């Protein structure tokens, strides 16, 4: 008999094993790749990170990047949630704006960076507007598609009990869609990290993107690797925190998206 995985210690040890395997593989590669195309070992990378935090204020870069992502996603999603619901609920509006939303969503946010530089310069405002933009279009589509996917049986049950249009929306559509709002924020977070690093590569004095760009310019490979790992870790931590919040707040769901 196979026991459900979630109840066994494997639930914790297997992911750990995956990470260990990856680090070992990285270490083996670092043994082989030496000379001009040298790959720094995990230990060297860790050392570079420690030096970065203690001597080069890497924490400032990390803080700036994380803050930029959080603010960008917050602004983008704060606008996307109401807009997504309104677009989904009023069919004429959706029909009217769907092509525009598709256009702007298909447009890679990175492509807007040069345009933003022209109009907004290279300040914090420029970066945040690109990030908010990216987060908004990523989230808005998820939200209005999830509203459109509300199971008709619940709407009919509500109508049979005499729910008005507003009651259907507030008491059935919104609660049903809450898990999808979390999904929208997750998608927005992913896009925001991708956009942030690109934005920082070109238009920032500090930040993780700048950090790895500098490291590459001066061929400081351990720093380059440390920066990349740090970007990945930050994104993963944010995602996990969001999933944990989602688990607690939408207990009613049969299964929470992984």
């Amino acid at each position: 008999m196979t026991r459900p995985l979630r109840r066994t210690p494997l639930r914790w040890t297997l992911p750990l094993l995956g990470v260990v395997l990856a680090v070992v593989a990285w270490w083996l590669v670092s043994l082989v790749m030496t000379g001009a195309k040298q790959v720094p070992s995990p230990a060297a990378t860790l050392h570079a990170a420690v030096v970065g935090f203690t001597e080069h204020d890497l924490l400032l870069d990390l803080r700036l990047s994380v803050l930029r992502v959080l603010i960008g996603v917050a602004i983008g999603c704060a606008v996307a949630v109401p807009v997504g619901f309104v677009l989904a609920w009023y069919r004429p509006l959706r029909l009217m704006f769907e092509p525009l939303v598709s256009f702007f969503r298909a447009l890679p946010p990175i492509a807007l960076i040069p345009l933003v530089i022209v109009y907004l310069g290279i300040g914090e405002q420029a970066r945040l507007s690109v990030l908010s933009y990216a987060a908004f279009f990523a989230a808005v589509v998820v939200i209005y598609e999830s509203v459109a996917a509300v199971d008709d049986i619940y709407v009919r049950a509500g109508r049979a009990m005499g729910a008005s249009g507003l009651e259907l929306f507030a008491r059935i559509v919104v609660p049903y869609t809450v898990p999808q709002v979390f999904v929208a924020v997750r998608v927005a977070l992913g896009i925001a990290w991708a956009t942030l690093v690109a934005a920082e590569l070109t238009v920032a004095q500090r930040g993780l993107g700048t950090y790895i760009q500098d490291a590459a310019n001066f061929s400081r490979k351990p720093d380059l690797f440390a920066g990349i790992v740090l970007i990945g870790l930050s994104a993963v931590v944010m995602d996990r925190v969001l999933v944990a919040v989602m688990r607690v707040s939408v207990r009613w769901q049969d299964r929470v998206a992984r």
Partner: protein
Amino acid sequence: MTTMIGFDDVRLGFGGVEVLDGVGFGVGEGEFVSVLGPSGCGKSTLLNIAAGFLRPDSGEATVAGEPVTGPDHRRGVVFQQYAIFPWLTVEKNIGFGLTLRANRRSREERRAQVARYVELMGLQGFEKSLPKTLSGGMRQRVALARAYATEPQVLLMDEPFAALDAQTREYLQELLVETTQTERRTTMLITHSVEEAIFLSHRVVVLGNRPTRVREVVDVPVPFPRTPESRLQPEFLAVRRHLEDLMRSESTTSARS
């Protein structure tokens, strides 16, 4: 007896195919009537018309003498797929209809109403449970309680037990028959089970196959109160044989066409 649910020459087609071809019958006040027919004959369509989810092409459905023009809280609906809200607890599901503007009650009244139907449906101890923790049979009991709690003029049940296993189905039929004896409410139940139709109903309306018309209306002379033993009474078995013959001839007609 006043007619509470009436169908008058109801016709409806989908994409040029006639589904209901002049259906007419009535359900009297306090009466429990089952609509029996082969699958795909349009019996659920008929319920959707009475509930106000669908408009007939011609003819009309009336409830309490008024033509049905749309969904209304005075007509309770129980769906085959339960349709209880997964994000609400059992008691909030049952009280839901009484929080809506169209049918709002005071908090005390709502609490009393919820407690009453929690008890009638045997859901004590599960008031705070979420639907995902309940079995199919319990979910449907919540749905029944929710429909009764809104105190509709008529109840419309669309194959409410079709998705349940045989044992649970029989148990829920017994629970429902008990409920109808304490809580006399005009009810129209859609089913394809002969046994279920007889056990629950005063009368059974048998629909013929597409295009659908009323083939026969059969009185069920099995006395109340009905218990599991009712299923073995000679009256029960006689009606059952008659209805099974009717259904069999219906399915052969449709097989030939």
